[in-house]
């Protein structure tokens, strides 16, 4: 009676171990493969030269700049709106119909596929507002895309600030605005920044929405009105159109390194945040 479940249990535990090891192996294989193929491609020239001959020769400097610009525009636009919304939700209003609508909207926005953002950005920014394929169109589209993430992470961070902080502040005669700016905001900052960093990662990795709004020009963008190709789009075009596998691996490796870096920074912040709260 007692023996049967034990044999079964061993099998099940074996399956669970196998699944976990399989997952780790597949994931490690993907990363290691790209890095092994791509890292040798990275060189000073690769990082600093403009792509030539459609990307077959030269480096990827303009796509790096394009990625940074598009991401910067998205962050600069989305952060004030996102963090402001989060403060409104967490500090200024009781649970009610408005908060429910806002939260429903944010959650719905979070689930919309990036291609739909791309469609919207294309028809709204590129066509209707006549911004054309440009860094600005791409950045604005991405700003909308990352808005829900920023709202959600910021709201969470604000809510984890202990109420005693606020009460202390009020008892010292501070107004609500002063309490928020001087007490709540600094304490929730690491959490907010973490959400921003995660959003940076999403912007860097996004392909479909950027391709439809920022275009795919390989030239170095001179202003925010210029079209530009981001690294992720460049990688997609190099790999799917069979232009240059070497450059594709190099671009992918650089992307993965960049994302790795972003994650490490985010982790450090989260740990510091957690340590502070303890």
């Amino acid at each position, binding site marked *: 009676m007692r023996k049967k479940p034990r044999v079964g*249990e061993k099998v099940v535990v074996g399956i669970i171990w196998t*699944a976990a090891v399989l997952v*780790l192996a597949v*994931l490690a294989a993907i990363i290691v493969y790209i890095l092994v193929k791509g890292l040798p491609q990275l060189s000073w020239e690769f990082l600093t030269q403009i792509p030539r001959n459609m990307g077959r020769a030269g480096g990827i400097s303009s796509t790096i700049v394009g990625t940074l610009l598009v991401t910067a525009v998205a962050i600069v636009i989305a952060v004030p709106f996102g963090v*402001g919304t989060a403060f409104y939700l967490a500090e200024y209003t009781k649970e009610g119909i408005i908060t429910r609508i806002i939260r429903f909207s944010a959650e719905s926005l979070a689930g919309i596929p990036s291609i739909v953002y791309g469609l919207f950005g294309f*028809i709204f920014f590129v066509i209707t507002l006549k911004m054309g394929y440009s860094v600005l169109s791409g950045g604005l589209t991405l700003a909308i895309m990352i808005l829900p993430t920023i709202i959600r992470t910021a709201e969470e961070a604000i809510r984890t600030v202990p109420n005693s902080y606020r009460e202390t502040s009020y008892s010292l005669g501070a107004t609500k*605005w002063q309490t928020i700016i001087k007490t709540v905001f600094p304490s929730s900052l690491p959490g907010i920044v973490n959400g921003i960093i995660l959003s940076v990662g999403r912007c*860097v990795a996004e392909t479909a929405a950027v391709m439809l709004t920022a275009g795919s020009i390989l030239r170095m963008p001179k202003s925010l009105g210029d079209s530009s190709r981001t690294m992720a789009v460049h990688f997609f075009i190099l790999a799917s159109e069979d232009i240059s596998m070497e450059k594709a691996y190099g671009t992918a490796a650089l992307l993965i390194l960049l994302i790795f870096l972003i*994650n490490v920074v985010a982790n450090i912040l989260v740990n510091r945040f957690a340590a502070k709260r303890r």
Partner: protein
Amino acid sequence: MKKFKEKLSGLAFLVLALSSISVLLLITVFIVVQGASSIGREGLLNFVFGMKWAPSQDIYGIFPMIVGTLSVTLGAAIVGVPIGLCTSIFLAEFAPPFLRNIFRPAIQLLAAIPSVVYGFVGILFVVPFIRNFLGGPGLSILAASIVLGVMILPTVISICEVSLLSLPRQYKEGALALGLTRWQSILHVQLPAAKSGIVAAIILGIGRAVGETMAVIMVVGNATAMPESILDSVRTLTTNIGIEMGYAFGEHQEALFATGIILFVMIMIINGLAQSVVRRKSK
């Protein structure tokens, strides 16, 4: 003065919040306005259940693509969910601390890797494998299912793990005290208790699979015909937009926006499901 400032700051936050949500409205309105005329022209039923997509002849039917999206998503769930669930149980219950410390950041990293990289790996390994050992052109429902299945793993694993870990310790302790084995405790006590979190994880994973575009374009083949087997090439709603958007204008473009509406509706249904599950959990 002080009071005025207080009011102003409250108002400012409200304005920020309202402008954030008005974006959702704006997106919905624009997509619907752009696509509605196409659906109006074709008729909703003809559009949704039409079997043929031939923009050059002004024929727009997306039923094969709806089937494509559903089959690829189902495949991704079949590939990703059991493995993801097992891995999350492993992380929550069995993993030695050092493995857990490797796993967690690795899974975070994987969630952040551009989807095009997954698609590329699919082209390099999954597609040739299917072509050589199972037949067909390789670009297929199966290939897309595998690639998407791997892509949704991080989502499924991390959310399932969180909901397993957030269970009160007494559940497990009580089960073990009653003489259940570790696995019996997991199967009969912990998993049922964490059910809504797990369901939410699966739905979110499915949402990601439905919405993915670039990785799918690379491995699914994009044929517009109705698939007959999982080794057939198929087109999904997202790839239909992704592959033709740059080329389209006029009625063709409107039909792609109409495709977007259908996709939008599907995602809203999925989101609604996920939110109601999460809400039930919090009650």
